[in-house]
């Protein structure tokens, strides 16, 4: 007997169906010695300093151009570890499935988890599965936690100095725009706008081992580039000056934002990082980033200014200046 075509509550019972779900749909894709034990936890070889992070993923729709919730769940946690200077090694994977989810969808997600984990060089070593009643979840929620080995200690916005360069590793706002468009009804984007969802381990390693003086890294996910830079400014007490014309944005993403009334600087990214590096080594950092897949379009978008007292100022294309604040509430499509 194989798994039914849709998930029912029975698959969360902890009984035979749960076992079958795990043995048929999960293990074959993620098999490794630690996971195959199916113990309550995984016993792992260690290192002296670890990076530990967790993230939960709720996204509608589950599949969108450029990615899906499975890829997102792996990359999201891997990226959080990479931004701390860690090399991600192990992940946990918890699935909260709404009954009625087609098993075909679950398979697609698990295939994607497998690909993303292999690509990022991490193993899923422990996990859990629960099933909730229909209409009590958006098909599937995923939580991942990750452990990495610390390779580059000491990254912090507190290291920032006046004059440092602010580098964005590629185009802004792709993921936020893609998901908003994929919600349907609004626009038919075709493939014009794709999520940038990607693991950033290789990119982070490239810049951190390039010899550049890297002060800090962070991936501007929810809240976008603007919110992350406000966080940098807040924790360092230093201001920043950004140049709108230097911020890479895909034309289709720009168009989508203007159609939906969104601000691209507040749209989420899932495959980009912001790096603050010393002005003298900015070119070194940039060259190292551009040599990687995920950092091809990297650009210096601004600099750390002492004078602005913790404010992030955007010099606009029109020649004006405005202060950027953290995102207040989720962006909604608007007609105003």
């Amino acid at each position, binding site marked *: 007997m194989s798994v039914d075509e849709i998930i029912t509550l029975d698959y969360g019972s902890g009984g035979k169906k749960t076992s079958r779900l795990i043995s048929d749909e999960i293990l074959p894709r993620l098999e490794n010695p630690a996971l195959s034990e199916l113990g309550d936890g995984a016993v792992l070889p260690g290192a002296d300093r670890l990076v530990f992070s967790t993230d939960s993923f709720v996204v509608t729709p589950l599949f969108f151009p450029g990615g899906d919730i499975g890829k997102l769940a792996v990359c999201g946690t891997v990226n959080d570890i990479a931004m701390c200077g860690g090399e991600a090694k192990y992940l946990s994977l918890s699935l909260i499935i709404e009954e009625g989810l087609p098993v075909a969808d679950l398979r697609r997600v698990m295939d994607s988890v497998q690909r993303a984990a292999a690509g990022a060089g991490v193993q899923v070593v422990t996990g859990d599965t629960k099933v909730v009643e229909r209409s009590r979840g958006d098909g599937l929620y995923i939580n991942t936690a990750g452990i990495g080995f610390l390779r580059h200690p000491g990254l912090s916005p507190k290291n920032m100095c006046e004059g440092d360069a602010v580098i964005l590793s590629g185009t802004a706002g792709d993921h936020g725009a893609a998901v908003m468009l994929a919600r349907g009804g609004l626009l038919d*984007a*075709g493939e014009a*706008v794709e999520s940038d969802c990607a693991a950033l381990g290789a990119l982070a390693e490239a810049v951190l081992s390039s010899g550049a003086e890297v002060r800090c890294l962070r991936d501007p996910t929810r809240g976008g580039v603007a919110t992350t830079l406000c966080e940098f400014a807040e924790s360092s007490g230093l201001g920043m000056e950004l140049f709108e014309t230097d911020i890479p944005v895909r034309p*289709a993403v*720009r168009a989508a934002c203007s159609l939906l*009334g969104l601000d691209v600087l507040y749209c989420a990214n899932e495959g980009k990082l912001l790096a603050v590096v010393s002005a003298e080594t900015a070119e070194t950092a940039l060259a190292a980033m551009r040599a990687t897949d995920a950092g091809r379009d990297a650009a210096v978008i601004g600099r750390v200014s002492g004078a602005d007292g913790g404010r992030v100022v955007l010099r606009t294309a029109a*020649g004006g200046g405005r202060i950027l604040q953290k995102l207040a509430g989720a962006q909604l499509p608007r*007609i105003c």
Partner: protein
Amino acid sequence: MCLAVPLKIVEIDGKNGVGEVEGLRRRMRLDFIKEPRIGEYVIVHAGFAIERLDEEQAKADIAEWNEVRDALL
């Protein structure tokens, strides 16, 4: 409450049409455009084309903006 964007008409089916910008396609209504033609630009607000966009004038405007920007106010 007047956010509106220029789209190029790429499909017409009675009062319904499809507008395009940068590879993005948006269904829109053409109720208010007399004899719309494929390839024309319209200004679209809340799913309705509210007016034709004069392409020649649009080009002249962009040229003027650069001038204004250089001279500032």
